[in-house]
């Protein structure tokens, strides 16, 4: 593709990227809106929403719940998923195909079905819905994504390094914690970040299993009919900026690491 074609493709892509950014910019801009009750019409610029985020108490409580859920679910899913990923790459076992299918299915199931299924089970078992049931649900759908992410890392690991550890009389435990784990760590961190993001932004499954407990997305859904306070935009924007910074730091560190390895 040359000349006109390449130029057209560049223009098309810039338009597409702008299109992607429109509602993001809109959300951030409206976090600075001097809105009183409903944050729909622009009334002027202010920092007040940022300085007094917890003025809208419900938003802060919902945000706190979301953080708790995301942290616990991420921890559980990362541990369980990493163990499965190591087993899948390193060991032959019976029911391997069944295991892979069991890991793939949650990713191929629409969230409504996952949410309704779990809710039906909690209903049948008479479990009271709340923070715990949300955490159970989030851990469930995060595991598969952790496995997929970490498995790629385990597969690219050079077994000779662990071999060397064993040759130097390292116990299995030492070999794992001193060699395998540090080498897997970038993959595990990536998986944990993905889990956190998935859990933090999940609404559909949460809605079926939360009972009266509020999470940040559920708060927005419930408040959508009567208008979202600008403080919700503040929290979403702050999370956005933080995530972008993390992504850039990770990118830069990875680039530096590759450079260092290439120099050796």
């Amino acid at each position: 593709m040359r000349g006109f074609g390449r130029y057209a493709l560049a223009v098309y892509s810039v338009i597409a990227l702008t299109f992607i950014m429109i509602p993001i910019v809109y959300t951030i801009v409206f976090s600075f809106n001097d809105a009183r009750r409903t944050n729909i019409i622009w009334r002027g610029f202010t920092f007040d929403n940022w300085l007094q985020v917890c003025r809208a108490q419900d938003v802060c409580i919902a945000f706190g719940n979301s953080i708790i859920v995301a942290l616990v679910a991420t921890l559980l899913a990362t541990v369980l998923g990493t163990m499965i990923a190591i087993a899948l790459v390193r060991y032959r076992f019976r029911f391997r195909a069944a295991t892979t299918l069991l890991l793939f299915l949650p990713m191929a199931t629409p969230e409504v079905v996952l949410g309704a299924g779990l809710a039906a089970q909690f209903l049948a078992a008479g479990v009271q819905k709340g923070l715990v049931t949300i955490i159970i649900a989030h851990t469930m759908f995060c595991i598969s994504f952790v496995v997929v992410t970490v498995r790629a890392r385990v597969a690219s690991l050079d077994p000779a390094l662990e071999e060397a550890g064993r040759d130097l009389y390292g116990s299995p435990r030492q070999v794992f914690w001193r060699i395998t784990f540090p080498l897997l760590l970038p993959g595990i961190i990536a998986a944990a970040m993905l889990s956190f993001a998935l859990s933090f932004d999940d609404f559909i499954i949460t809605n079926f299993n939360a009972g009266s407990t509020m999470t940040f997305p559920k708060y927005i859904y419930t408040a959508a009919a009567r208008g979202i306070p600008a403080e919700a935009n503040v929290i979403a924007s702050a999370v956005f900026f933080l995530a972008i910074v993390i992504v850039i730091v990770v990118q830069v560190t990875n680039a530096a690491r590759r450079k260092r390895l290439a120099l050796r």
Partner: protein
Amino acid sequence: MAFGAFSSGAAPGVATVQEGPRRKSRVALFLLLPGIAYLALFFLVPLISLLLTSFMAPREFGDIGQFDYAFRWENYVKVVETYLPHILRSFGYAAIATVLALIIGYPLAYFIGVNLRRFPLVQALALVLVIAPFFISFLLRTLAWKQIFADEGPVVGALNALSLMGPGDHITGTPAAVVFGLTYMFIPFMTLPIYTSLERLDLRYVEAGGDLYASPWTTFRTVTLPLSMPGVVSGTLLTFIPASGDYINASRDFLGSTETAMIGNVVETNFLILQNYPAAAALSIILMATILILVGAYVRKSGTEDLV
């Protein structure tokens, strides 16, 4: 194990290949059991629970929301009769949104993955822009579109001024708005896998096409597109599956209206508000079964079965 240790000392190259199967299966069991048990308990059992619920019958003289286990397959007939428009709408909207997201996502992925190769920094920046939506609440993004397209918003105002829209016309609440929202929501899910397969595309194949006097279009159709097919397949699945079950965009409080309700909306209403659990469960099962059949046929047809 002893033999494994011996062979690893004698010929490390061979040993690394054989190492896996020779290790103790007890370790494998220890690694697998907790996670698999978790998925069995909180994914498989709920699916079975959902299936059982879908056949339940209302309890005699019971309150709303009280049901007993039964085998009322009529539940399925009833939901299909009642909600056929919603079922068709779900798959229709999802299919259109998938095609639109592909039309937007493929060229974008090609540009970032191929044309921007020589500029790693710009490429990295463009990728961050593609994944940026993941970092900000999708509900707020959808609400942002709702306000942009609202009757008193800028777009309707402009179209009214150009007399392209009458005073009684709306954008929000129409099927077009819902499809628009779905398309927007899944562009990153479509773009990223296609980018991943195009980023690794060996450009010498494309050059070879040109050297053999193929037109750019023929080269694209016979070389580039087949090589990027795994990305296209994952992208379309990552879009179509969640889009058909989505109920945010079609919701009355977001981009839709009661005339745009999809399966997800009906499941939500029946489960959480009407407490008609069997109907919600039957609809969920229909949704899941249809998706599995469609996806199975699609994956077989596109010839990329090693997706998992």
